[in-house]
């Protein structure tokens, strides 16, 4: 935390927090300095300091923001929420302060909709170009910044336990790969605990594939959870 504050102070960064009284969960959003990446102007954007944690995701997923009555009343305008995963899937990847995993693109988008409605801000997934910009240069010393194939012991790790990048963001490379969404394409960026350190590059990006949900034994397969997605999470961006 001290490192974060120092980094923020050095950059004189604009940071705001979202807190959820239901379970005390919170996260911080960091103003990313405007700039140009691959010909695209990146402007007025905040990025989550960390990958999205289970605690925050569960406020939505487990309907912790609703009363029992609200949970059981069908409202046509309600944002839908994930079904309960059956044969899943988190398989010992950690919970408190760990990144949420197995998140489908549909889930990630619906979560952003819910969060935006809740906060009155515009939360969404980054585009691939935005992601590359906020992640910054490929790590020179992956062990210092990232959980990857050689040091992660085949699992995710608690957020923000490695050095942040120049913008004060943690775990952009490694730990969990993070959804990016453009008009034409979607996939995950930054690699994960499954990624060899040599591949932890700014451009490293994996296009979405049905294989990420191959092991869902049910039909229809879940649109909310990726049964093979133990390496897939997300990082929020926000344009106020």
């Amino acid at each position, binding site marked *: 935390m001290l490192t974060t504050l120092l980094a923020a102070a050095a950059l004189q960064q604009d940071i705001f927090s979202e807190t959820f009284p239901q379970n005390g969960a919170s996260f911080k959003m960091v103003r990313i300095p405007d700039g140009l990446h691959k010909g695209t102007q990146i402007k007025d954007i905040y990025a989550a300091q960390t990958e999205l944690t289970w605690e925050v995701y569960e406020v939505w997923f487990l309907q912790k923001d609703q009363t029992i009555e609200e949970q059981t009343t069908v409202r046509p305008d309600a944002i839908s929420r994930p079904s309960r995963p059956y*044969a899943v899937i988190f398989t*010992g990847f*950690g*919970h408190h302060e760990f990144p949420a995993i197995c998140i489908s693109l549909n889930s990630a988008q619906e979560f952003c909709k819910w969060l935006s409605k809740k906060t009155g801000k515009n939360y969404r997934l980054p585009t691939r170009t935005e992601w590359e910009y906020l992640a910054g240069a490929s790590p020179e010393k992956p062990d210092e910044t990232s959980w990857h194939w050689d040091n992660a012991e085949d699992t995710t790790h608690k957020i923000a336990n490695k050095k942040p990048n120049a913008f004060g963001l943690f775990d952009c490379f490694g730990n969990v790969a993070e959804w990016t969404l453009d008009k034409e394409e979607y996939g995950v960026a930054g690699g994960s605990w499954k990624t060899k350190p040599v591949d932890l590059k700014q451009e490293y990006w994996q296009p979405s594939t049905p294989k990420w949900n191959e092991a869902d*034994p049910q039909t229809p397969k879940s649109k909310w959870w990726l049964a093979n997605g133990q390496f897939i999470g997300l990082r929020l961006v926000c344009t106020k």
Partner: protein
Amino acid sequence: MDITRRQVLVGGAAAALSSTSFAGGVFQDKPTIKVGLIGCGGRGSGAIRDNLAAEPGAVVWAVADLFGDRLEGALTGLKNDLKGRCQVGGRFYSGFDAYKQVLAEDVDVVILTTPPAFRHIHFAAAVAAGKHVFMEKPVAVDGPGIRSVMASAALAKSKNLSVVAGTQRRHDVAYNECIKAIKDGAMGDVLQMNCYWNQGGLWLNPRQPSWSDVETQIRNWLYYTWVGGDHIVEQHVHNLDVCNWVMGTHPVKATSMGGRQTRTDAAYGHVFDHFATEYEYANGVKMMSYCRQADGCASRVSEQIIGSKGQSNANTSIKGEKNWRFEGDRPNPYVLEHGRLYKSIKANEGFNEGVQVAESTLTAIMGRMSAYSGEEITWEKALNSQVSLMPNPLGFNDLPVPPVAVPGTTKGVY
């Protein structure tokens, strides 16, 4: 039966005249393998697709489900997704006896994917009818059901029928490589095992006014022991099966505790939401088993095998004197298990997982019996239990929910 020119030329007229005469090489030349699906829920609908993915010559021939609405929904999906490989025509049936109608059809293979309570009944009927079987785990919920499965497995063996169970870790390449290495001594002697299925809560189908008690309970089968066996049986059987696989046998006794703390609403029936069980094998090795369904908690679904020279998660790594790590392609085990079934059928091999899955299911039932009663339960006591949980007579009747078991007090659970 479809008769094609190839079949007449290669398989011969005899094969064409009898659907059950495909022993030996004849089956290999059957142009169409007809599959019956009994139980059209999410898993059954998934399993039939996995089955067809494993065998290009297979088609869906007949389907059954207790509920007409589930049957209709599943059939629509099959027609849309499978096109020409869905050849059900008018062979779709609902009701408690629908499985009999599927078995009376000219099917070669049946997939048994109803809730667990009915498995042993369907398995017995399928074997009697001479069908090859894929059946989901668990295969029973009580002692009488397990004995039935074991008897049917033996009968299947005598008929050289192939039987594969839905313990898909047995067909996962990583589990196979790792457990082979463990058995070959990669981490010395097995001293202790731990296994876990800890996850959040699951789905609920709120009761509709038109549903009887029995319909409500079957549509919410996870929460009623007579239908689903409780979650130690229904889910955790996978992890217990891996430990039995490593040991090459089943435990001889269990001492368990458990209860119901977070999922207490009557809508969730009477099952527990957590169990912790100590199992002991004949050679003295102990297995600590944990399972929980509670929201907002740390989740863990895995096994840990501790040996004299290292330890392993039973699938991707062994650490110790010798380190081993699985690396490479890991094809979908839900398809591979059906591939194994067809390999056996075509080779006339009689591959039969019936007893193995019955033993793993009884391992889980033994833990439940101990947790519900508060007593140590031996293998013999569980296996020879005379307590049948199946309502008699079975029908869409009233059926009061038993009180939640209280260890040390509740009687009649084994």
